[in-house]
């Protein structure tokens, strides 16, 4: 390997992350979960949507945090500003919007018809005179902190977040913001599922390379050897604790099928087959590791619940959101540039989509069994090796957030 150092992993115990076993009760404890709701889901920046889904005045998306029984509306107002509000009519508390997305320059509550504009102001009240002394200007929708980075809308339930989104996401710099925010990226496909597992287990499964050789022995074995999945930790970052990277082996092992090779002639959407096509990273200086011939992707952990995969020609976003200590929603979404116009591109897209689907079924296979063992108290601590250091960095960040220390770094 010409760039041997690129495969380096931080040594055990580096960055004050320690070497001790990690307790498992933070995956199963109701008390810990209640604290997570307070200190994490009410205090950190959460990816709520894609800015392009609120491109025009009146466009809206809704975002649910089930564990908090909280629904958020994100809108684009007439001044071009992105706003976020609690999805709660200030009359008697009904949800105003129930669709995941749509367009409504004025949002009308289905209960009694109170109308709010896209800035959240109460615009009309049927039978207003029935309320007597009444000040509409004080009854706008309750605001939620919101910002946009990399084309993604993030919300924060803290009315005054202690750090800006930009600060939160360091070391991801302006290049990442521009690259990911490129308007050419369009949502291609995605899946959503519900698991009987703690929300963090679905994150853990994606942020280390140690599992690859065994977990994926029936799919991509050889395409990304575990040893070619180095990791980095960012101890000074508030919102990006770690990343894991993936490189092809110099000698491709495993099965490269005729179908995969045919697919590679027509695009770059498969993670596991080197594309014969090129993809340029406009405004993304340094984002793609294009200098390395074997690089496939970098996957960044965006605390608390997103793993963002960046590769040539594709962005992949995995999100989990908790319902209860042992229950969560998991979803994955893919973004590509350009429309699929001819059959070669469609074939490539289909092959890539099916390969990643089958790989993901393996990634998702272990979480529910682990959860059962944690719930039963059979496993009280877990052991994290050098290659799994992103999990240690994730745990470290989790605990600092629970103490309320991480946000004020």
């Amino acid at each position, binding site marked *: 390997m010409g760039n041997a150092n690129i495969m380096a992993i931080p040594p055990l115990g580096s960055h004050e992350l320690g070497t001790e076993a990690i307790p498992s009760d933070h995956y199963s404890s109701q008390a810990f979960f209640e604290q997570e709701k307070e200190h994490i889901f009410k205090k950190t920046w959460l990816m709520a949507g894609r800015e392009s889904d609120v491109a025009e005045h009146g466009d809206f998306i809704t975002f649910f945090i089930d564990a908090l029984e909280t629904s958020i509306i994100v809108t684009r107002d007439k001044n071009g500003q992105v706003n976020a509000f609690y999805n709660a009519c200030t009359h008697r508390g009904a949800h105003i919007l129930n669709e995941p997305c749509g367009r409504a320059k004025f949002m009308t509550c289905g209960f009694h018809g109170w109308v709010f504009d896209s800035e959240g102001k109460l615009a009309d009240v049927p039978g207003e005179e029935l309320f007597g002394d009444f000040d509409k200007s004080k009854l706008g929708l309750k605001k939620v902190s919101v910002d946009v980075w990399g084309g993604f809308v993030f919300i924060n339930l803290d009315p005054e977040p202690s750090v800006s989104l930009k600060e939160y996401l360091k070391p991801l710099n302006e290049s990442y913001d521009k690259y990911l925010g490129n308007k050419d990226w369009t949502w291609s496909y*995605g899946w959503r*599922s519900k698991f009987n597992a703690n929300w963090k287990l679905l994150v853990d499964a994606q942020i280390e390379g140690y599992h690859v050789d065994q977990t994926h022995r*029936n799919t991509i074995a050889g395409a990304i050897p575990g040893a070619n999945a180095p990791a980095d930790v960012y101890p000074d970052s508030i919102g990006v604790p770690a990343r894991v990277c993936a490189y092809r082996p110099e000698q491709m092992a495993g*099965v490269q099928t005729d179908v995969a090779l045919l697919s590679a002639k027509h695009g770059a959407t498969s993670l596991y087959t080197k594309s014969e096509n090129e993809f340029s990273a406009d405004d993304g200086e340094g984002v793609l590791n294009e200098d390395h011939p074997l690089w496939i992707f970098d996957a960044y952990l965006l605390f608390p619940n997103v793993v963002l995969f960046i590769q040539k020609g594709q962005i992949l976003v995995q999100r989990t959101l908790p319902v209860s200590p042992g229950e969560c929603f998991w979803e994955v979404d893919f973004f590509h540039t350009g429309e699929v116009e001819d059959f070669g591109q469609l074939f490539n897209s*289909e*092959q890539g989509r*099916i390969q990643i689907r089958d790989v993901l079924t393996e990634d998702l296979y272990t979480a529910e069994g682990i959860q059962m063992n944690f719930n039963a108290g059979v496993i009280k601590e877990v052991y994290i090796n050098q290659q799994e250091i992103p999990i240690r960095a994730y745990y470290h960040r989790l605990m600092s957030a629970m103490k309320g220390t991480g946000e004020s770094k």
Partner: protein
Amino acid sequence: MSQAIARPDVSDIEVEINLWALPTTEDRLVKRMNSTMDEINSFHYAMLPKLPAIIDYLNQFKLADLAGDDLKLSRAALAMCEVDNAVYKWKTPVLSTGIDSLRMVKKSGFSDRVIL
């Protein structure tokens, strides 16, 4: 303009094409999961020799223009992506070391909450 690519002769595998030319990825997934390995192999090895020519032929048209027998042929070609792992890696119709693929419910957009 480059010369038009002639449609490959697939008359000898018409039966297999008819069985697997299902409209959506999900349809083809269910078909694979409910098939035997003999059925999957029969389809795969019938299609494989002709697949490069089929892709080249179909690739000369805009997707929106594919219709009739060509649309059917395109769906059968896409089914080759669905059976690939079963044929070469699993040797069985369903992966035994993963969750049921049908638990992953297709979304219609980034904000879609298809499962509530």
